[in-house]
């Protein structure tokens, strides 16, 4: 049985879905909720919490609540210092390559480690549901994520012990989940408007007979629902008497943010919302706000969606009239103000029949199933969101792979030597749309040496850019004039080395006793299920080898283990696994004996033991 999953690693919430033989489904917690808050809490008393637990504790306890860390994936400390958010996190002395947060217990954590913990929690949810280890995962990323952000996401997957089958763009995943289900939309061009908690993507796709081709994509990796919350939270803090949120207690900031978020969500269904915010040490705030007033307040945030929409439509060469529809994805598209923007910009009503929270995870699950050999009539053809180039004379960028090129992709360009007897050539690999190197993101610098001395302009070096299906880049340079080749291969350098990933794995074991406990519980449950299944199978096949009393005793212990498996005591699970082993020992011996007489039975016995 294949156990591949799709994971939507979101800014605010993350989800996991699976698509086995049949339709894809989102895996839910005990309350039937598919959402897992992408939140971690590090309390004073030393205990950490993830997900819903983290959110609840942060409202009552002092400690470090880390939210929306997806904003910092693949970013240096510089980006975090500039973050416009309410700074309830504490930055540790990080480096240029990676943000580091200081948390209770005198520890530091990176966005990659936190993402890995969310991924591990979702992996555990899936393993419990599917009754076995997850064999592979497709993890979604915002379409507009650059190379560093994608690499960081892949590292988080590795750190969580996942076999990452693919990084998939969120709007593309959503389009697949939406389009495959609705054959009436076949053969058209669609826009996916994806406004999540912290990121914004807009993609234009063509669907045709199971093929989903991305024509163009654009976005803003620092724009999302969080920004709407912030505007409202700042207003509440101002009303309560604090003009500058800097230096305010963290509990207070968390409360303001929670009040803002709740109010924002109520505006999706209500015209007037009464907002109550009664912080300790501040003026109590009680105000009624109309939806119209809210719209005016958040308009500056919403206006930032416009330029990416224009860019994607221009690059696709389409106008609103050419579209079959606009699909809304991401919780923030529930806001009426966002829907009004979509209606106005594209000149049509958005399609509302998709679940904006779940389509991304479902699409990722479908792709995971395809990539692990599932028989599905579909194919996703994604693009790179940002141009990749090389620095040339005068600090100007020469684009080698332009944005919106289908991936995987490969492109080559040739350089000639510029000095007599030149034996080396320096390369600077950049990503971005601007002409000047300093306005683009630097990915890597490398030097090709060993070029045989020649007259200027004679030596030729061929540079190849290869983008893999995850949108990750490898650059190779080769000297071609003399037939002798000197070549060098670089991968952009901000990613983690395998050794660093291993070190992080060791570190996370030290500080996650609670994790260990829950992992042992899950392993126990998985093992219990395996034994229960095997016992039942053996009873079905060879039950006749047992007397009625023997059979009843095996069935009793099996039933007890079944009950224990669904409770939380792993020691009880272990005890009953041993008991069932003991109760079936004689049965196994008889089956073994029978198998010597009948080689055909070999198969089922091997499964049993």
């Amino acid at each position, binding site marked *: 049985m294949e156990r591949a999953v799709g994971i939507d690693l979101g800014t605010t919430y993350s989800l996991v879905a699976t698509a086995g033989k049949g339709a894809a489904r989102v895996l839910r917690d005990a309350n039937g909720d598919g959402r897992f808050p992408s939140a971690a809490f590090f309390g004073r008393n030393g205990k950490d919490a993830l997900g819903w637990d983290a959110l609840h504790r942060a409202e009552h306890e002092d400690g470090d609540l880390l939210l929306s860390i997806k904003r910092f994936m693949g970013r240096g400390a510089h980006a975090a210092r500039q973050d416009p958010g309410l700074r309830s996190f504490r930055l540790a002395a990080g480096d240029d390559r990676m943000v580091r947060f200081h948390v209770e217990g005198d520890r530091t954590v990176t966005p990659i480690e936190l993402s890995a913990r969310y991924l591990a929690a979702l992996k555990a949810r899936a393993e419990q549901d599917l009754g076995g280890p997850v064999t592979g995962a497709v993890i979604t990323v915002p379409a507009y994520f650059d190379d560093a952000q994608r690499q960081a996401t892949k590292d988080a997957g590795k750190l969580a012990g996942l076999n990452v089958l693919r990084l998939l763009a969120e709007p593309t995943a959503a389009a697949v989940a939406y389009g495959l289900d609705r054959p009436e939309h076949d053969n058209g061009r669609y826009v996916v408007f994806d406004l999540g908690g912290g990121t914004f993507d807009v993609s234009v796709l*063509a669907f*045709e007979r199971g093929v989903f081709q991305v024509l163009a994509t654009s976005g803003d990796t620092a724009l999302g629902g969080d920004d709407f919350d912030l505007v409202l939270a700042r207003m509440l803090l101002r009303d309560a008497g604090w003009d500058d949120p800097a230096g305010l207690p963290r509990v207070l900031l968390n409360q303001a943010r929670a009040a803002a978020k709740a109010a924002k969500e109520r505006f999706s269904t209500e015209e007037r919302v009464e907002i109550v915010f009664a912080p300790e040490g501040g003026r109590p705030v009680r105000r009624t706000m109309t939806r119209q007033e809210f719209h005016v307040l958040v308009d500056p945030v919403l206006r930032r969606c416009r330029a990416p929409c224009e860019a994607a439509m221009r690059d696709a060469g389409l106008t609103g009239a050419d579209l079959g529809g606009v699909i809304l994805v991401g919780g923030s598209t529930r806001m009426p103000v966002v829907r009004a923007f979509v209606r106005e910009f594209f000149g049509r009503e958005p399609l509302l029949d998709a679940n904006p929270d779940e389509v991304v995870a479902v699409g990722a699950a479908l792709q995971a199933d395809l990539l692990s050999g599932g028989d599905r009539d579909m194919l996703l*053809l994604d693009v790179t969101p940002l141009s990749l180039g090389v620095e040339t004379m005068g600090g100007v960028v020469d684009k080698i792979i332009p944005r919106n090129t289908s991936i995987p*992709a490969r492109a080559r360009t040739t350089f000639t030597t510029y000095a007599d007897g030149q034996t080396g050539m320096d390369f600077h690999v950049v990503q971005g749309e601007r002409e000047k190197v300093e306005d683009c993101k630097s990915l890597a610098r490398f030097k090709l040496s060993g070029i045989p001395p020649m007259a200027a302009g004679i030596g030729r070096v061929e540079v190849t850019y290869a983008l893999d299906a995850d949108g990750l880049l490898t650059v190779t340079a080769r000297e071609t004039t003399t037939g002798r080749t000197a070549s060098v291969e670089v991968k952009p350098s901000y990613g983690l080395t395998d050794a660093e990933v291993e070190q992080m794995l060791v570190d996370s074991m030290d500080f996650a006793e609670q994790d260990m406990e829950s992992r042992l519980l899950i392993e126990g449950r998985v093992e219990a299920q395996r034994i229960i299944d095997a016992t039942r199978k053996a009873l079905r096949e060879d039950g006749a080898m047992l007397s009625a009393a023997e059979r009843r005793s095996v069935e009793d212990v099996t039933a007890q283990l079944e009950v224990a498996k669904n409770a939380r005591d792993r020691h009880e699970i272990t005890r009953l696994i041993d008991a069932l082993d003991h109760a079936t020992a004689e049965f196994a011996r008889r089956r073994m004996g029978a198998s010597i007489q009948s080689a055909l039975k070999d198969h089922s016995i091997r499964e049993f033991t």
Partner: protein
Amino acid sequence: MTKCPHCDATTDPVAEPRCQGCRALLPLPAGASPFDVLGLPTSYALTAEALDAAFRRRSMAVHPDRLARASDKERRIAVERTAALTEAHRTLRDVEARALALLRLAGVTPDHRADPTLLADLMETRERAEQGDDVRRALVEQVGSARAGLLTDLERRFGELEREQALRDAARVAPLGALVTRVRYLTRLWEDLQGQREHAVHVQ
């Protein structure tokens, strides 16, 4: 016609990416043109829709994501064919690159240098664009329509050669080289003129 590397059947990997005998994916023959890669007839007159449709159809047949359970050998072929497919699609989607591909197929290497009158023209236009936004906007229009006129010309002349089955006749294709070079210079100028406008908007 080549032999299938999997089962030795005789195959045509351009017309049909999979072997008729064993259904396995076939490697592209050496020297396949971008048209071959997409499974399209050699022609200048291809619409963006037709190119996208061929790209999707071929991708479904050759993409490694569709071959998760295939042999390593077949998957390597799939990776190669998909890379070639992406490149061919990108080449033919761009009218200038498509024209250059047709020249190359005929064995024609165009002279990339502009003739002196064209160069003088280009320099003069760039100087005039410095006079102000209104002048520049007018020039964008003017250069854009000059370029469109040249493209129509190019389409007509390639069309004639195609009807007369002379697309591979170097002597007949060669005169189009200068026309293609002219289009490329105008495109560069046109983009630069528009780029300045975009820049001005950002500054506001």
